[in-house]
């Protein structure tokens, strides 16, 4: 987060300089009570299931987390909102994302912390000037703190999802060289335009890499065939032809052949076969025809 956007964010949360000054003024007195504060927090937390999950079997972890929490609240109360303050909260978010902490207990914890902090400000009485205003300021900063943490958790989760869908897409387009100059691509599932794009780019990349002359596109695993899917397949065929690679469709079932004819799809000059075996034979002929006799003899 750049300094200008930190300023924007502070403005959105209505955190003015006066708010931060109030928090800083109360900080030394509140920091002195932090051990007490954290003890109260864990009193509350111990009544919940998550305490058992995360700490019951590991007391040393509890001690470590308490220490980290202490340091975290110290910087919170110092209220110097800069890049490193934001980064520290992001780190908290990353740790929470890593342990899969439920949002429910996190927000409940922040709400409890807010009340515990407010109680302490009130208990300080006249030692704090403008106690009610200070409580409000702390509350605003608490919301900002939670926002940064949750945003980081959400970002990490988004990354996880996009990485796994990328991996899935990767697995769904296994373009494999099966013979010198022949690639095999068995297609499974549903072919939509997004998937076709991916199939096309992977296939073209592989053709450029392997200099293949024939691509066997096995569609026996394609779950549904309609005009749109047929057109997508034709596009792949045309694209590979532009790289000098002949595409042979294999695995056409009687049902698919019937659908194609009934829909009036013009598959033009695309070579089609019912079985993979026939396709492979055609592919061998294709690469053989393009080679000098010395290479195939």
């Amino acid at each position, binding site marked *: 987060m750049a300094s200008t956007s930190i300023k924007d964010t502070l403005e959105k949360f209505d955190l003015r300089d006066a708010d931060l000054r109030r928090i800083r003024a109360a900080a030394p007195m509140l920091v002195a009570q932090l051990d007490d504060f954290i003890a109260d927090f864990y009193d509350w937390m111990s009544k919940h299931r998550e305490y058992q999950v995360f700490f019951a079997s590991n007391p040393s972890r509890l001690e470590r987390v308490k220490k980290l929490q202490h340091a975290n609240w110290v910087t919170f109360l110092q209220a110097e909102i800069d890049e490193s303050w934001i980064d520290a909260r992001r780190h908290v978010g990353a740790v929470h994302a890593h342990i899969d902490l439920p949002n429910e207990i996190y927000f409940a914890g922040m709400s409890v912390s807010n009340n515990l902090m407010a109680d302490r400000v009130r208990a300080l009485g006249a030692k704090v000037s403008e106690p009610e205003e200070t409580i409000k300021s702390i509350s605003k900063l608490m919301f900002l703190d939670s926002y940064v943490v949750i945003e980081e958790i959400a970002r990490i989760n988004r990354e996880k999802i996009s990485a796994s869908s990328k991996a899935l897409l990767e697995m769904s387009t296994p373009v494999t060289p099966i013979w010198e100059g022949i690639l095999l691509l068995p297609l499974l599932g549903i072919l939509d335009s997004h998937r076709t*794009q991916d199939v*096309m*780019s992977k296939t*073209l*990349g592989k*053709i*450029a890499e392997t*200099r293949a*002359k024939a691509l066997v596109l096995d569609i026996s695993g394609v779950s549904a065939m309609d005009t749109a899917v047929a057109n997508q397949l034709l*596009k792949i065929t*045309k*694209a590979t*032809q*532009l*790289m*000098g*690679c002949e595409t042979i469709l294999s695995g056409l079932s009687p049902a698919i052949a019937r659908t194609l004819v009934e829909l009036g799809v013009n598959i*033009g000059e695309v070579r089609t076969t019912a079985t993979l075996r026939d396709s492979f034979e055609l592919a061998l002929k294709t690469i053989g025809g*393009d080679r*000098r006799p010395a290479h195939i003899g």
Partner: protein
Amino acid sequence: MSEVGASHVTGTRVGNALVVTLGRDLGGATMEHFTRVALEGVQQGGATVLVVDASGVPFMDAHEFHALRQVLRMAGVLGARTMLVGLQPGIIMHLMECDADVDGLNAMLGLDDALRSLGAEPETSGG
């Protein structure tokens, strides 16, 4: 070898074939030069095979592709067998997205494959 410097179009004779190499930019002037180099090479130079090498072209829109095809068709009318080689995967993806007309176009990835499949005969005199 004949070269038209400003537009980065190079025509090279390989036996009975004329290989025209396109540069990075396919702007209006380049296309003009390309048309002249290709058609004059076929008509006056007597090339029976025209191979256009686009492997150095990083971007090509549907309009430029159409213009390129027109030149290949013209060379076909003049009696030459034609082939486009070295189209980048990214360009092909783009052409497919634009639904460009690619039917009937001869294309290959490598120049050697193209020359071989078109039956271009290299000169054996060592020239």
